[in-house]
């Protein structure tokens, strides 16, 4: 059972791949809220809590983890990654690139841009489930994710930080 209950943002334009990701998370007993976006711009608006995603309970919305497809309509995944890393409030959120491409240039570009992991989407349900299970096990159970209140004070300073999570 994952220790972190922070939301997970999945930026994935393929509904079929998204369903496969969600099914695999459920198999891995992940109960974290999952927010899905098909467009990088949309996801970024959500992460910045701006435009139609502006919420007063922004503290609840900040994800602990971003799962990012590269081949997106419009703004591609690499640009989303660069924007997240360049943003002083979002820069610390771990980003896992989950892509079809095994192209070395793309892999290198993603790590250079600050991706925390690059996982090639496996073909085959068992392998796909296993890849997602390992992501969940490592990122939601093994590691300590950056804590949210500290960063969020900069985003929405009027909101009281939540009680200490230890």
């Amino acid at each position, binding site marked *: 059972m994952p220790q972190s209950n922070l939301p997970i943002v999945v930026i994935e334009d*393929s509904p079929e791949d998204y369903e*496969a990701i969600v099914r695999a998370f459920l198999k891995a007993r992940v109960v974290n809220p999952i927010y899905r976006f098909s467009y990088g711009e949309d996801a970024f608006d959500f992460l910045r809590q701006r435009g139609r995603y502006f919420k007063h309970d922004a503290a609840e919305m900040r994800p602990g983890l971003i799962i990012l497809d590269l081949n997106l309509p419009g703004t591609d995944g690499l640009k989303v990654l660069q924007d997240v890393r360049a943003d002083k409030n979002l820069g610390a959120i771990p980003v896992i690139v989950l892509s079809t491409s095994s192209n070395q240039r793309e892999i290198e570009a993603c790590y250079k841009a600050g991706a925390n992991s690059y996982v090639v989407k496996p*073909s*085959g*349900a*068992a392998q*796909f489930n296993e890849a997602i299970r390992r992501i969940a096990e490592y990122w939601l159970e093994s590691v300590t994710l950056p804590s949210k209140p500290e960063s969020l004070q900069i985003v929405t300073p009027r909101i009281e930080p939540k009680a200490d999570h230890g």
Partner: protein
Amino acid sequence: MNSLINNGGGPGSQPAGRAGNQPTNGADIPPDRAAGFQPEGGAGFQPAPNHEPPEPRVAQLLEELKHRNDELDDFVHIASHDLKEPIRGIRNYANFLIEDYAPLLGEDGLSKLRTIDRLGQRAHDLLSALLYFSQVRRAPLALAPVDTGDLLAEVLRSLHSLIAERAATVAVPQPLPVVRCDRIRIGEVFRALTTNALRYNDSPQPFAEITCDQGTPERPVFCIRDNGIGVPSAHYETIFGIFKRLHARDDYGGGTGSGLAISKRIVERHGGRIWLQSVVGQGSMFYFTVGGA
């Protein structure tokens, strides 16, 4: 100019539209090669007057041919990449059906879904091979002096399960030379040729031997000799075509049929060539050089 000549998979005398995926004899392009680069329909092309050397025209056509080949490779790359996504989806959904509706489907229904999954896997494997095939021509070579003995030892370690499974013997009787080449790519050639030697082999004691003849005037010639099933001489050229198989799909380990085509591309990019001699039922000898790359 040299790199252009060696790059195109040996366009030789093929019409421009077909170059790139036609097997040819190797990188040794004959001196009259320029004759093959006449524009389509040829009639509009007049021989240059004597006082004007033909080189600029040839260079321009070579440049165009290279550009076309690059476009073709880009197309192959993008198409094979984009096709992977729906194939992954088909496989995943076949498995969702298996997971969610097994009682309704019955054993016959489940077996048909597993066939869909298996065919999807095959399509995925073929696309991966095609992607790699196009990458070999696109990506620059990382040339450096390589101890091919070390490299081969590394390749053989990675093949240990195949070697054990086939109860095979692989011999490297003499030291192999240091050669300037792309270590990873030439490792792929060793791997493909050694794998073929052991896979296409009905002998109770499969055997492969890797040697290098450094005495040839031009360049060292590597040889992979086996006691396998052999290749009929009618197929000496065609087996280097992408996805060309001489046997039913699932026989002899059921590979994708891309190993030799990829090896040929790699060797030719190095300015070398690859060829074979074989006796059906007794074995084959595959030779390759890595040229002066």
